[in-house]
């Protein structure tokens, strides 16, 4: 029997199928400003130094003075290549332009797991910051030794240590291999916030110039001598079995080198890319599948989720003194499956030579993907090198890992040649793991003075994290003749949570209870999508707060402030409201305004969003007219990068919220391209989006890349309700639904 346990904290493992389990987790510790869960004693290194404690895992200096910074994180378009270098430049006291960065590569960098959860600056940035500071200290100490001076009399600037009397030793002259192969210490002499010159400065992104001038920037741009092209043929639905295949015609097509069949895994390799595309189409037509999938009825999705077997856990339970409730309210919110919809379908290159495999991939986690691919091919992990090369925005777990596995399998069939696999648009849309559909139920009572008395929140959700893992997490791993078993789904542990991310409201309620109904059965392939459960939980909580505020006759912003204790949270709320002009009443007819706030994961960045919307009652069409946001991400590294991420998150969330839902029939996914899964286009873009940053010099970095998704959704829903009187609780807020909810 499959083990049914949910790890709630590192200290408790609880068993029980369907039993209600109560977790007394320690809230103050979990909300610690450090941004890191405290671990057992002895593991006190900051950030990812825990995973790679040697300084030269992060910083290397050549005799010529060239400095290379290493990170186990990857550039997803969030600008971390630039931010991490800013951190290093400041703490090392070297010119920004003199640094090189190596991102995740299993042969060269630390294992920092996945680039996800908005942790790159928090984890990798913190590690690099401390490593750089400690490297600088070591260089100063060495200079002190050689110059026979006290270290305190020495300065560092521009890549050199300089003495009072002007004597100068460059880092290149000072460094030695042994020096940097030193274990990091738990604390570092970090620069005073006031002395920072590069961290917090407006540094232009290092990757943009190549991207606008046609430089090689993406895994899609990789070219190797003698490189071959490949395309896979995917089945028409999940779990389909290949019953017959006549490859003769395909093998004879111009340019075709090989047709590969391994169980249900089908691919074609060719010399020229377009010939490969045509061969793929012919191969697809020559394949006959027996289809077995049974997908739920799309319009009954919510009721299905409520009926599936669940593991139920109370993740928060705090009872206050009993008091008479003035009024009780309840609401149910629903969310469909959402696609990542990466603009560039997944791509990978691989080369198999002398029993060793190299894979170039835009996977968010080269180490885990390497592990899974090694298992897939029956190779030892050391025999597989996985190198990250940028893809288009992935927003979580998209097809990247699977494309890498496809490339690996194909490369093994054409040893000595590098193979480039490009997924088609339809394949990316149909086979990527979606953000799970969810249902939430909220109930709350107000006391006589219009404050929340008690709060009951429940969320039903699949796993939000099905990344490799083992080979069984890969499409290729499940397709080959001897498939790997699909791993049992697991819930991301608290405090970060998967489906329950941000399910615990940040507000202070006298009584509150939050229950997680984890659903292991996944009728549709799901995994992590930007912000995981936070999008839905914040949408639900912040919509409901608005409904409560209205019932209490309170202004929505004031109502929230009344229930907040965190001063930084309040500052963000007030800033957004003020900059939006919240207290000014005048809005054009048909326009409305909405507000929402959350602290991502209750321990990362704070973000408040105010939106003005316009609803045309005759058509039901809603538009976000303008958005104003405020964000507190602790010490800001790259202000524009931060603004860019919040702006982008708001607009992406508007698209999710107004338009998006994965569609499927009884057997197949039917949203397979942009016509069947439309996203926001320029006509629906707001007139303006403003982001105001509350910089907190000296405070730890807080991840912000996913902070806007939830607040933007709720702000928009609240604005639509305000504009039209239609309170909508089922995502997406389509034109049809809005129209149906409005009186003519």
């Amino acid at each position, binding site marked *: 029997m499959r083990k049914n346990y949910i790890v709630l904290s590192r200290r408790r493992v609880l068993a029980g199928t369907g039993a209600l389990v109560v977790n007394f987790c320690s809230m103050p510790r979990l909300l610690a400003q450090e941004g890191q869960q405290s671990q057992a004693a002895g593991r006190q290194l900051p950030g990812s130094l825990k995973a790679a404690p040697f300084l030269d895992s992060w910083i290397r200096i050549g005799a010529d003075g060239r400095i290379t910074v290493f990170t186990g994180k990857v550039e997803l378009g969030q600008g971390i290549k630039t931010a991490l270098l800013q951190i290093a430049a400041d703490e090392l006291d070297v010119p920004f332009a003199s640094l090189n960065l190596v991102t995740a590569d299993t042969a060269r960098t630390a294992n920092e797991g996945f680039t996800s959860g908005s942790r790159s600056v928090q984890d990798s940035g913190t590690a690099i910051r401390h490593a750089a500071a400690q490297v600088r200290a070591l260089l100063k100490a060495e200079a002190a030794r050689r110059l026979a001076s006290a270290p305190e009399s020495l300065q560092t600037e521009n890549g050199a240590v300089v003495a009072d009397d002007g004597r100068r030793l460059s880092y290149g002259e000072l460094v030695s291999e042994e020096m940097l192969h030193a274990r990091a210490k738990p604390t570092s002499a970090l620069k005073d916030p006031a002395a920072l010159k590069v961290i917090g400065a407006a540094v232009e992104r290092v990757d943009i110039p190549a991207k606008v001038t046609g430089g090689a920037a993406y895994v899609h741009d990789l070219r190797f001598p003698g490189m071959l092209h490949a395309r896979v043929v995917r089945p028409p639905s999940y779990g389909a079995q290949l019953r017959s295949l006549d490859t003769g015609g395909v093998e004879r097509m111009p340019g075709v080198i090989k047709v590969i069949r391994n169980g249900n895994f089908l691919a074609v390799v060719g010399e020229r890319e377009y010939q490969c595309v045509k061969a793929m189409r*012919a191969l697809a037509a*020559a394949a006959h599948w027996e289809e077995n999938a049974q997908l739920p009825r799309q319009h009954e999705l919510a009721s299905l989720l409520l009926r599936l077997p669940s593991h139920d856990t109370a993740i928060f339970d705090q009872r206050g003194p009993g008091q008479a409730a003035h009024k009780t309210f309840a609401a149910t919110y629903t969310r469909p499956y959402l696609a990542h919809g990466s603009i560039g379908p997944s791509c990978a290159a691989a080369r198999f030579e002398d029993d060793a495999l190299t894979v170039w991939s835009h996977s968010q986690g080269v180490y885990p993907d390497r592990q899974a691919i090694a298992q897939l091919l029956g190779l030892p992990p050391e025999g597989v090198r996985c190198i990250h090369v940028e893809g288009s925005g992935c927003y979580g777990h998209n097809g990247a890992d699977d494309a890498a596995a496809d490339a690996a399998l194909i490369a093994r069939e054409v040893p000595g040649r590098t193979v480039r696999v490009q997924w088609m648009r339809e*394949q990316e849309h149909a086979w990527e793991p979606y953000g799970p559909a969810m249902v939430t139920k909220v109930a709350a009572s107000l006391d006589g003075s219009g404050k929340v008395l008690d709060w009951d929140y429940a969320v039903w959700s699949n796993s939000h994290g099905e990344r490799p893992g083992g080979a069984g997490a890969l499409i290729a791993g499940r397709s080959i003749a001897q498939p790997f078993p699909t791993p049992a789904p697991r819930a991301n542990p608290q405090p970060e949570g998967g489906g329950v991310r941000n399910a615990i409201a940040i507000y202070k309620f006298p009584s509150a209870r939050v229950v997680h109904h984890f659903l292991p059965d996944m009728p549709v392939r799901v995994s992590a999508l930007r912000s995981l459960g936070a999008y839905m939980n914040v949408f639900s909580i912040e919509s409901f707060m608005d409904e409560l505020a209205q019932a209490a006759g309170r202004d929505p912003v004031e109502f929230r402030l009344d229930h907040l204790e965190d001063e930084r949270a309040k500052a963000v709320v007030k800033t957004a409201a003020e900059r939006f002009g919240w207290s000014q009443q005048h809005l054009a007819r048909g326009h409305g305004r909405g507000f929402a706030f959350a602290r991502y994961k209750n321990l990362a960045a704070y973000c408040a969003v105010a939106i003005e919307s316009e609803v045309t009652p005759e058509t039901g069409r809603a538009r976000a007219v303008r958005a104003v946001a405020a964000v507190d991400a602790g010490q800001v590294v790259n202000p524009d990068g931060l603004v860019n991420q919040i702006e982008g998150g708001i607009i992406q969330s508007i698209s999710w919220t107004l338009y998006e839902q994965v569609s499927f029939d009884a057997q197949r996914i*039917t949203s397979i391209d942009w*016509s069947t899964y439309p996203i*926001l*286009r320029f006509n629906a873009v707001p007139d303006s989006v403003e982001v105001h940053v509350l910089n907190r010099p000296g405070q730890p970095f807080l991840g912000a890349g996913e902070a806007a998704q939830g607040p933007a959704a709720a702000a928009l829903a609240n604005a639509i309700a305000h504009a039209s009187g239609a309170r909508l609780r089922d995502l997406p807020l389509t*034109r049809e639904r809005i129209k149906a909810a409005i009186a003519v």
Partner: protein
Amino acid sequence: MIARTIAACLFAAAVIVAAYLALVRQPTIDPITAPEHASFDPALVRHGEKLAALGNCNVCHTAPAGKIFAGGRALITPFGAVYSTNITPDPETGIGAWSETAFRRAMREGVDRAGRQLYPAFPYDHFTLLTDEDDKALYAYLMTREPVRTVTPANDLAFPYNMRLLLAGWQLLFLQRGPYHRDPGQSEQWNRGAYLVEGLAHCSACHTPRNALGAEKTGERFAGGESEGWTAYALNARSPAPVPWDADSLYDYLRNGWQAAHGVARGPMAAVMDNLGSTDDADLRAIATYMAGILGEPTPQRRRQGDAALAKARDADRTSTTGSIDTMGQGPTVPGNDNELGAKLYGSACAGCHESGRPLPFGGLHLALSTPIEGPNARNIINVVLAGIPAAPGGEPSPVMPGFAGAFSDQQLSALLAYLRARFSDKPQWTDIAKEVRDARTGARPVISYPSHGIGAAPADVSERMSPW
């Protein structure tokens, strides 16, 4: 003697002019204060909303990127441009000062509140058929819209068409005042369909050819017309659709905005379909029944041709997803027709979608089923090839076809059109391809591009799926 003749003629002329003016001059109806929204029965307003959708009012009476019903949209006619009026209840620039009587007179008689004749670009020759009750409901709907204060542009008509008084003569000749009278020899459904089609839906306004004075030719109703640069195909026995329409397929088309054997609504019909999305099934069935009668029973020969076209399309679905295209990307050439270029263009630029086997509405229609290719001219194909079918702007799933304006030269486009006609139609080749292409490119034939109709959820029917990849 001569003087008396002249005087008599002048007197006669004066009498005629006076009589004309007496007939022509209509009284002003007094302005009113717009009634409170709450004074209108909500059920009546909802009924009016449905009628407005059938009448397609918002499409003409809304400028591109303008407020709904606030007018300002140009309708290009052979006589110049007529701009739609502001029909929001704004008292100064809209119809806020119009009583229900004034509104009904405009609908029934084509005269505005001030007594001026309206241009029949506003199709009151159809709206005249509306019953008083339906006029009342429409009035209730319009008067409960958001008033928008905006002055619409003046019409841009050449002399003498800019003289409204002459419209009285036009009305005398061509306006048969309503309301609709039931035909007792026909079913209720037929009568309902007739009432809607000939009245609100004003289908023949686009689908009927017009005479030199811009009126529908009574002897050629539904024989085909044009709208905003698009050919509106004949809906009578001369319908060029390869597969003949019947009441069921028409209903499907009106309900969904597409039909498997005919294609996707595009051009001005896409906007119509958007509006029909809110129409009751019963009304759509009625329209379909009535129109099926107009189309008439297809001859056995037409039926056979239709079946053959369907068979061609289904074959493509069953065989290789490369369809009829060879490995070098060329479509089959037509015997006796030296159009290798057209075959190559079709094979490499079109067949990827149009012979992919992907079902409608999201796949390209197999062109054996294409109405435009059988039609009297190449205009609609030119429009679609140049501009594509843009995605629905509201975020609904919708078929998307890219435009090829930048990719094709005029000569290449002409070759392609000739190939399509030769390959997929038995009718004689179009003679005016080059001119039609040039007119579209230069704007001599102005074409209004419409985005796709937003189709609801992707087909959930298990059989409506693309071939696997």
